[in-house]
C-alpha cells in the first residue's frame, strides 16, 4: 500500500468537499475491493474518503414504492432484513449468498454497484427489478447504469446514496458460482414486474445485461420451458480458466430456467 491521506467525513457535504479537494480521491465503502487493490499497489490515490460515518447512507426502508437500500448498507443487513425478505425475498436471498460471512459484514451495495465487477451479484437484481440508483446529483435508471467492464454511468465525484427496488409480482435469482472465488460465474435474475418480465444476467458478460428474447417468451408464457430453448450468443461473453464463453452461454439458459421455476 502506498501512503494516502485518510478522511472520515460525517456528512455528505463534507465527503463531497473532501473529494473535490483531493488530487486523486477515492471513496471507501466496505473496502472489500478497494483495500486489496491498494495492498497490491494497483492503485495510488492521494486521498481515501471513508463513507462509514455518514449515517444518512445507511439503512433499509420499505414503502409503497418498494425497497430503498442506503448505499452503505451491508450485504448482511439486507440478507437479515425481515422487511426485505417480505417485500422481495429474492433480493434478501441474493444478498445472503454474496461471498462469505466476513465479506457480507463489510461489503456494501453502493460499493458493489459503483465497482460493477462483471461477476457481482447485485447488478443482476438492480437490472432484473428495474431499480433506480440515486446519487448526490440525480437518479439513474438501472437500464442506463451499467456501461461495461468495471464501468458505470457514474461521473467523477458522484456518490451513490441509495438504490430503490420496485416490488415485483414474483422474482428469483439463481447463481452458479465460480468454484474458486464464489462470485457469480453466471447469475440470472428473473422478475415479473409491473412493466412485464425482466431477465438480467451477471457473470457472463463484461457487465450485467438483459435477455430480451427470454423476456418476450416469458411475457407469453411464464414457465421454465419458455426459456429452455433460448440461448444467448457466446460471442462477446467472458472466458477464463473456469468457464469458456460457450459454457457461460449454456449456463445462462440453465440458470434462467431454474430461476423461473423457483419464482413460481
Amino acid at each position, binding site marked *: *500500500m502506498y501512503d494516502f491521506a485518510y478522511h472520515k467525513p460525517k456528512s455528505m457535504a463534507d465527503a463531497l468537499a473532501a473529494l473535490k479537494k483531493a488530487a486523486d480521491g477515492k471513496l471507501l465503502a466496505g473496502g472489500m475491493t478497494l483495500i486489496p487493490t491498494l495492498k497490491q499497489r494497483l492503485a495510488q490515490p492521494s486521498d481515501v474518503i471513508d463513507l462509514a460515518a455518514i449515517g444518512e447512507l445507511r439503512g433499509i426502508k420499505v414503502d409503497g414504492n418498494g425497497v430503498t437500500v442506503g448505499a452503505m448498507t451491508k450485504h448482511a443487513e439486507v440478507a437479515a432484513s425481515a422487511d426485505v425478505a417480505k417485500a422481495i425475498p429474492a433480493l434478501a436471498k441474493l444478498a445472503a449468498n454474496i461471498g462469505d460471512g466476513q465479506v457480507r459484514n463489510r461489503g456494501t451495495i453502493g460499493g458493489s454497484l459503483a465497482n460493477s465487477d462483471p461477476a457481482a451479484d447485485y447488478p443482476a437484481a438492480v437490472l432484473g427489478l428495474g431499480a433506480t440508483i440515486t446519487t448526490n446529483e440525480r437518479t439513474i435508471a438501472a437500464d442506463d447504469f451499467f456501461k461495461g467492464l468495471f464501468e458505470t454511468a457514474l461521473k467523477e465525484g458522484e456518490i451513490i446514496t441509495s438504490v430503490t427496488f420496485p416490488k415485483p409480482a414474483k422474482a428469483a435469482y439463481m447463481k452458479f458460482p465460480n468454484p*474458486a*472465488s464464489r462470485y457469480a460465474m453466471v447469475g440470472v435474475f428473473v422478475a415479473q414486474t409491473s412493466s412485464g418480465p425482466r431477465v438480467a444476467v451477471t457473470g457472463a458478460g463484461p457487465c450485467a445485461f438483459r435477455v430480451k428474447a427470454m423476456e418476450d417468451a416469458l411475457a407469453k408464457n411464464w414457465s421454465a420451458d419458455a426459456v429452455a430453448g433460448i440461448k444467448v450468443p457466446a460471442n462477446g461473453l467472458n472466458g477464463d*480458466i473456469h468457464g469458456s464463453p460457450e459454457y457461460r452461454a449454456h449456463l445462462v439458459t440453465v440458470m434462467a430456467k431454474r430461476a423461473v421455476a423457483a419464482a413460481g
Partner: protein
Amino acid sequence: MGNVARIGERVRRTEDRRFLTGAGRYVDDLQLARCTYAYFLRSPHAHARIRSIDTSKAAAAPGVVAVFTGKDVADAKVGGLICGWVVKDKHGEPHKAPGHPAIALDTVRYVGDTVAMVIADTAAQARDAAEQIEVDYEVLPAVIDPAAAVAASAVQVHADVPGNLSYDWELGDKAAVDAAFARAAHITKLDLVNNRLVPNAMEPRAAAAEYDRGTGTYTLYTTSQNPHVTRLVLSAFVLGIPEHKLRVVAPDVGGGFGSKIFIYADETLVLWAAGKTGRAIKWTAERSESFMTDAHGRDHVTHAELALDKDGKFLALKVDTIANMGAYLSTFATAVPTYLYGTLLAGQYTTPAIHCNVRAVFTHTAPVDAYRGAGRPEATYLLETIVSKAAREMNIDPAELRKRNFIAAGAFPYQTPVALTYDSGNYTPILDQAMKLADYAGASERKAAAKAKGKLRGIGISSYIEACGLAPSAVVGSLGAGVGQWESAQLRFNPTGNLQILTGSHSHGQSHETTFAQIVSDKLGIPLDQIEVVHGDTAQVPFGMGSYGSRSLAVGGSAIMKAADKIIAKGKKIAAHLMEAAEADIVFENGAFKVTGTDKNVPLGQAVFSAYVPHNYPLDKLEPGMDENAFYDPSNFTYPSGTQICEVEVDPDTGGVEIVNFVAVDDFGNVVNPMIVEGQVHGGIAQGVGQALLEYTVYDKESGQLLSGSYMDYTMPRADNLPSFNLGYQVTPCPHNPLGVKGCGEAGAIAAPAAVMNAVRDALAQVGAQDRIEMPATPQRVWQAIHAH
C-alpha cells in the same frame, strides 16, 4: 496433577489451547532487536535474459540497508541451492542438476524466480525501493508443458541440459513385462494427467536471521519441517557457516505438506545477508509469493497399460511417465517420481511383472517437489484408475476385480517386482468393510433413482498402499539419498519428576505434542501434564531428520520408545539398590518399580530423584542423572493400506459434481490417538478431493504466467465441498517397530483422487464420457466431457 494417558485414548490436543487462543509463536511473531526487512524482487517473466540491472536508485531510497543482485551473491561465493538426492538414470549416469543460484545471475527461468533482494528498515520501504530497481529483460520463449518439453524442437531451459531431460529412469523387468503382454487376454490402455498442485500451507514461508558478532554465531528462524537438515545443507553445501556456529529454529509452523522440507533461496539469502549486513533480517512471504515460489506438487503425464488374463488376473503393468521438475531441481525433487512412485506400482496386487519408465524434465515453471504423499498419490491414482478402467472394459465389478488380485493375507512378507518388501497387510477385510459402510450393494439402485431425477450417480473405489515411515538409511543411501533417515529422541527427566521429550521430528500440524506425550505417559505411567515435548530447535534437541513421509510416529516415536526403555532399565538398577533386591527381580508396572512377588515398590519419580540427588545410590556402578538418548533406524518402510469408496452425483446440466458419500477404511497398524488420526485422514481426504475436483494450477502455455495465482482463481477445498466422512479401521500391527504403527499423515491424500475420479467416471460412463475427463473435474470440464462429440 493430571491423568496418565493410555495408547488408544482420544486425548484432546494439548497444543490446541495455544493455537486457538492466538498464543502460538510463528516466525513472523518474533521480535528481533534492530530488525530490518527483506523484499525479493521476482521475475515477471517465465523466461528472459537479464541484459542489465540497475539498483542505484533503490540503494539510495529511504531506509534501505542493502540491495543484492545475482552478481553480488556470486561474488560472495554463496553456493547454489542443491538437490539432495542423486537419481541415476537407466545408463547409470547421475541426473543432470543445473546450477541454481539463489538469485538469478543472467537468466530468469520462471515467474517468481528471484532477481534481487532489498533490505530496509521497514517492509514497506524495502518494497518501495524494489520498485526503483531497473531491470532490462530480453523476453524469451518459454516451455511450460512437460510433454512439450521433451519434443525435439522444444525451447531449452538450461543450456547444459540437452532436451530438458534431467534423467530417464527405469525400474522393473521390461522383458518379463513384454512377455506377459504377449500372452494377455485383455490389455487396458490409459493416458492420464496428474495435475500440478500449489501446497497452500496456512502460514506462508518465513525466515528471520541474526548474526552474533561476539560469538560468530548465526541464528535462523524459519518455517521448516526439518531444521537440522536445513542447518546441514546451509552449512555444508551452500553458505559454509560451520554447523556448530549455526542454530536453526523452526518454532510453531502453520502447515507444510512437504513444501517446508526444502531449502529455498529466500531463507538462504536472509541468513547470508544477516551476516553480511550485521543486522537482523525478517522476511514473510505474501500469499502471491507462496503461489509463485513454494515448490509445487505432482504434475505428471503418463501412458500406462495393464495386461490381464481372461479371468481378470493382472499379468503385467507398464508405465511411461513424464514428470515435470519445473525450472530447477528442488531439494528432494528427484526422488519423488522415482523411488516414491515406481516402487509403489504393485499397489495391493500380485501383478508379477511391472516396468516403469520416468523422464524428469525441466520447464519454465516453479520447481516441483514432495507434496502430501509425494509420488505415492501419483502411483495410486494411476494404478487405481487403470484397474477400474479394466474392470469396466472386462465387465467385472471393480471390487471383485480388486479382490481377485489382492496379495493374500498369508503371503507377507511379500516381495513385489518393484523392489519393496511389504511387511504386513490384510486387504480383503478392509475392502469388505468399506463396501459395507458405503452400501456398495445398493449403489445401482441409487444410480437408477438419480437417473430418474436427471442426475448421474457414480461410485468409485480406491485401494491404496503406501510406503512410509521413511526410511531404512542403508536402503535410501543405496538409491542416492544424501542423508540417513533415522530419528533421534531424548528423554530428559528433571529432579522433580517431570520430563521433556526432545525429538528430532517436527510438528507443523501433526499433533506431536499430544501423541508423543501420550506414548510416554502410557509407557512410563507419568501424567500427561508432566511431560513437555520439545522440537524444532537445533540448539535444544539432538540431530534429527524432521517430519515428512508419515514418518514421525513410526520412526520418531520408535526412537522415543527406545529411550524410554533405557530409562526403565536404569530405573530398575536404582530401584534394586534402594530396595536391596536383585535387579532381575524388579518389574516396572504402572509407573513404579516393584520387587516381584512382594508389595515393595519405588515409584519412578523416586528413582529419578535419587538419580539427581545420589546420596543413597550405586555410584560405583551407575552414573547419576536420568537423561537418555536413542536413535532409531527402521529396518523397513511401513505399509499402511486401505480402501476408500466415494459416491458422487453429477448434474449434467451444469457439470457440477457433488460428493454424496465418502468412506475410508484404513490399516495404520496400532492407533495411538483415534481423534488425531481421524483429523489427519479428514485433512488428507480434503486435499485429495481438492486435487480431484477443485485445485487447478494453470500456467499460460505461451507466456508462462501463473493464471491461478490467487484464491480468486485457485480453488481450495472448503467445508461445503465435502461430505461428512465415514471412517473405519482394520489393524494389522507393523511387525518391525516397537509401537506397531504405520503412519497416517498422507493416506487420505494418496487414495482420495482415484476414489473421487473413479466415481466421476462411473457416473459419466452412463453417457459414454468416462474417458474424456481429467483432474480437476471442474464443472466446466465435466460439462465439456458430457457434451463433446
